[in-house]
């Protein structure tokens, strides 16, 4: 094996790849060849570093230099300056937004300082397409230990002791789930990995599968051993081609190494994994719908019980866990349940990966210990609100989570506190909103998503969500009344109370939480027909400022619908009933006499 003095880690996640990181890798290889350095310096395409806002990322080891927003044409300079002459290319370093200083090492960056990476431990460190790199970082050691030293019940006990809760959204204790599945006897059991990540803006699972597929494979095998299953299935959406490719490579390598298949590591344990592709329906993240989809049926949920642990894939006991949940397992086995419990909070041990998005400076993927506050995540890791605007709300838990406000900023993030605050953990989406966001329009946006994604099986979700959306639209158009707000509340409560699956039971959350937390904005919309954020077009009015208007008639002449009247050299007037808010008059006015109210 060649010994390298330096490693160049180039981010190969989907985000950086779409910004030509593959070309960066290629250029590095060519430049190193040209400089006769390819024997001593290795280029590794890794998984996601998380700091997608500043991608593509290149990290140089061992000096930990962290280059951001690297372009393929920068490579020549990095090789010539940094690698050959030892001089860092300072223009590619990250600049601390507050201190305006250049930071060389990611450890000192606000984005990384408060992070703790367990599920993402290998993302951005190893080549996900090389099993040896995973093994070098204690990979498959946990599986080996389970098979050699532990009974299935021992494995379940460690997971139970760790207090790990399902990271897909439900937060159900993983160890307990495994125990249920282990109790049911059957000729065949299944381990299913739910990689049907569907929340808009969320890419936690994708990044893990792209950056560290072996951690999931190893965990599935461990789960198979614990519950007595020999078959594993990964249900992954077909829109994740890179994750699929890397999983396929990883499964093939694991088979070649005898880590999947018969007699794994010389034991009697047999386990293998197949992929099942989803067509991208959000509801297929619900485990019963997911199982039906894998069976070739319509992706629709069914009533639980029976739970999949009793009757799942083809009616056999099936344990379904999410990607991130699995990614935690090998570390828990190696370091013990107590260690995991020491991280995070009592009721929500461990860490959680979040996808930070919206009006925040540092968009990206982060992993933080549970119990961290929203304030720390948004202002320290996230670097605060974009363009110095004012924070308004943060939506957690994906499209069916709630919108939390200023008053929730110091709430510690854990499963139960988020629910108590009217939102939820969900799979870890976190979308930040500022003063330019209208909360009624935000609720409407999320409802649009759930209306689109409802499977249509149960009436409250199929029709009720549509009615919620229509009522919100009515309010945004300025036709709403106070009765409509009450109506929204009643419909929302009934939908939550009666819908068949998690999708419908949570879809009204954005409505209820925005009504609760932004009551004033709703009232403004219905009483004063005003949208303070200026988002709801129908509530805007074009008005002529009398003191500025000189009566030049330019606006009246350009108005396509004849909404502006006025004598020459006297103040003009816009008839709001005719105005179509096209903005032509504002553009034409040289006297700053027209404004939007």
């Amino acid at each position, binding site marked *: 094996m060649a010994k390298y003095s330096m490693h160049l880690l180039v981010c190969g996640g989907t985000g950086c790849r779409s910004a030509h990181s593959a070309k960066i890798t290629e250029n590095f290889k060519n430049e190193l060849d040209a400089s006769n350095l390819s024997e001593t310096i290795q280029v590794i395409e890794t998984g996601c570093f998380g700091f997608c806002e500043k991608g593509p990322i290149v990290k140089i080891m061992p000096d930990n230099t962290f280059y951001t927003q690297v372009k393929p044409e920068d490579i020549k300079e990095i090789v010539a300056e940094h690698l050959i002459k030892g001089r860092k290319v300072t223009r590619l370093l990250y600049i601390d937004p507050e201190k305006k200083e250049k930071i060389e090492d990611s450890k000192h960056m606000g984005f990384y300082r408060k992070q703790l990476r367990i599920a993402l431990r290998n993302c951005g460190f190893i080549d996900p397409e090389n099993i040896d790199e995973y093994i070098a970082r204690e990979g498959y050691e946990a599986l080996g230990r389970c098979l050699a030293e532990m009974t299935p019940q021992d494995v379940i006990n460690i997971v139970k002791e760790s207090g790990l809760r399902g990271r897909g959204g439900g937060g159900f204790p993983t160890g307990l789930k495994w125990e249920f599945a282990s109790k049911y006897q059957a000729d065949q059991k299944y381990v299913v990995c739910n990689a049907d990540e569907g929340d808009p803006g969320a890419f936690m699972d994708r990044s893990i599968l792209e950056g560290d597929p072996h951690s999931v494979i190893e965990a599935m095998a461990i789960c198979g051993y614990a519950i007595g299953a020999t078959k594993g299935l990964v249900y992954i959406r077909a829109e994740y081609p890179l994750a699929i490719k890397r999983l396929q490579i990883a499964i093939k390598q694991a088979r070649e190494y005898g880590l999947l298949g018969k007699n794994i590591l010389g034991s009697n344990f047999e386990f293998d994994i197949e992929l099942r592709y989803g067509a991208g*329906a959000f509801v297929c993240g619900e485990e019963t719908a997911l199982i039906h989809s894998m069976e070739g049926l*319509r992706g*629709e949920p*069914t*009533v639980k*019980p029976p739970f999949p642990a009793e009757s799942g894939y083809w009616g056999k006991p099936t344990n379904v866990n999410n990607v991130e949940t699995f990614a935690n397992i090998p570390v828990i086995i190696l370091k013990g349940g107590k260690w995991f419990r020491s991280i995070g909070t009592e009721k929500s041990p461990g860490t959680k990966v979040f996808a930070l998005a919206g009006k925040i400076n540092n968009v990206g993927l982060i992993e933080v210990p549970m119990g961290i506050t929203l304030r720390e995540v948004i202002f320290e890791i996230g670097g605060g609100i974009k363009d110095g605007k004012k924070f308004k709300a943060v939506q957690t838990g994906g499209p069916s989570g709630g919108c939390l406000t200023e008053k929730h900023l110091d709430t510690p993030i854990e499963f139960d506190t988020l629910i108590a605050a009217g939102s939820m953990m969900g799979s870890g989406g976190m979308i930040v909103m500022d003063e330019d966001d209208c909360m009624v329009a935000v609720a409407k946006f999320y409802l649009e998503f759930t*209306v*689109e*994604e*409802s*499977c*249509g*099986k*149960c*009436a*409250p979700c*199929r*029709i*009720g*969500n*549509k*009615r919620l959306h*229509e*009522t919100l*639209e*009515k309010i945004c158009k300025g036709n709403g009344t106070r009765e*409509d707000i009450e*109506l929204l509340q*009643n*419909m929302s409560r*009934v939908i*939550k*109370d*009666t*819908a*068949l699956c998690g999708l419908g*039971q949570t879809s009204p959350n954005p409505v209820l939480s925005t009504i609760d937390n932004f009551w004033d904005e709703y009232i403004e919309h219905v009483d004063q027909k005003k949208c303070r954020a200026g988002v709801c077009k129908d509530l805007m009015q074009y008005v002529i400022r009398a003191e500025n208007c000189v009566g030049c008639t330019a606006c009246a002449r350009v108005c396509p619908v004849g909404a502006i009247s006025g004598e020459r050299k006297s103040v003009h007037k816009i008839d709001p009933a005719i105005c179509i808010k096209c903005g032509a008059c504002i553009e034409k006015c040289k006297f700053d006499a027209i404004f939007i109210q």
Partner: protein
Amino acid sequence: MQFVKLTIDNKPVEVPVGTTIYKAAKKLGIDIPVLCYMNLEHMGIENKPAGCRICVVEVEGRKNLAPSCSTNVTEGMVVRTNTMRVLNARRTVLEFLLSDHPKDCLICPKSGRCELQDLAIKLGVRKIHNEEIAEMSTYKKDFSPSIIRDLDKCVMCRRCETMCNDVQTVGTLSAINRGFMSAVAPAFEMDLIKSTCTYCGQCVAVCPTGALTEVDHTPELVRALADPKKVVVVQTAPAVRAALGEEFGMPAGTLVTGKMVAALRRLGFDYVFDTDFAADLTILEEGTELLDRLTKHLNGQPTKLPILTSCCPGWVNFFEQQFPDLLDIPSTARSPQQMFGAIAKTYFADKIGVKREDMVVVSIMPCLAKKYECQRDEFKTDGNPDVDFSISTRELAHLIKEANMDLNNMPDEDFDNPLGESTGAGVIFGATGGVIEAACRTAYEVYTGKKLDKVDFEQLRGLEGIRAAEVDFNGFKVKIGIAHGLGNARKLLEDIRKGKSEFHAIEIMACPGGCVGGGGQPLHHGNSEILAKRAAALYREDANKPIRKSHENPMIIELYEKFLGKPMSHKAHELLHTHYHDRSPKIKIKD
């Protein structure tokens, strides 16, 4: 059996483990409203997708409301079915359903028999909020020869899907689209006529709303009756007389043969005849074919066994589409409806001196597939169909009511002659097992040359989905299979395909229960007791008939003597037999 104790609305109740809240409440006399739920107890099939959410109840300790149709009871459970929370939820969900449902109830074919309408009455929804902005999910209407699909009225109860897939294994209907636009339809939203639909009508029979209804032929019928140039002849299928009374408030199993004849006569039909006559004729043709094949089989000559009955048009559609490799096995005998039409428009028309085109033959059928059958090209002469149109039991009831008549007040009258004369063997065609029993009565006597001691073959009766029996033909044991419901038929056909079938003859009826449970009958909501009572009524009529064997029907004897010659004669073949086509779906997938 283990039992569970719980309380529902403060009343204690004890039920077996595995009972649902809905059923436990029923035991206490608490009738929780349902919409999508349907229990086909005799088939062991329940439709409970838990989709309508109307039957929700409050369960202490549970965070959301529970669908009572699909939530099993647990020990110590405390259930409340009528709290403020439950009532509000139920009414709100119903309002959702109504907000996406056309309000043309006054002119809807299901009006008065619509379960959604019943719910709206029961829960007293008086207003649909924001109705003016509520979008409706709309689809194109689908008119097939038998069934109309108006999916605007679909409430996604999925009952039709259960009938089509689980009971009939036809697989035409399933959920399509998603969310607000989801509905139940053939794949790719194709029209029924292009699909594998057999027109058995079991979907129509269970649809709670007007989404699935039969094609209504009564306006054409009224026009024909009013036309003085037309001689209108009607035939009534056996199962109709055992169910029509239910539409007039009579208990299930009431026989209304005489009253029905009287009503038809008063409606203006020129001749009121009986399909039972044609059923007797079927026995002579099919029975002869059976004996012919059996004799060949016994003589070691090449032949095809088992022979399958062919009187059920839904079943004919099924094997033409799904078992095209077995087309040479069913009897070639036409169904009684078509035999009747062929004889009426030849033998009888000649007899009374009426031209074919001036005669209108109408059939009253418990069936929707008959509407399709009478339009098949095989059953037309120069474009003129042997049977002009077929109306269902439900349509007839409508027509009688529309004509200001009440079946209860009708006298008992007899069918006209000659095509109204029938035997007990013809009557039992309407119940599962009846055709093969009728065939046995004749085949036995023809084969053995002996008189039957006992006409009743009780081993062939019953409601089991698949039945097997042996009938002793003087030492030769004829092995008989019976299936009703296409799902059961499929099992027997798969055996034939694999060469595993040991039967000599098999009777198949597409609808569960046979014609008494047909898709055109008064709605029985899956209640098998009603089916059993209707069947019992037919066996009662059989028992009371002076002649109970088809070959002894004097009018049939006369028909052969004067017109047909003998069974399976050239003329009989021309008028009374048919041929089948491979109609399996030919789907081409582009390379």
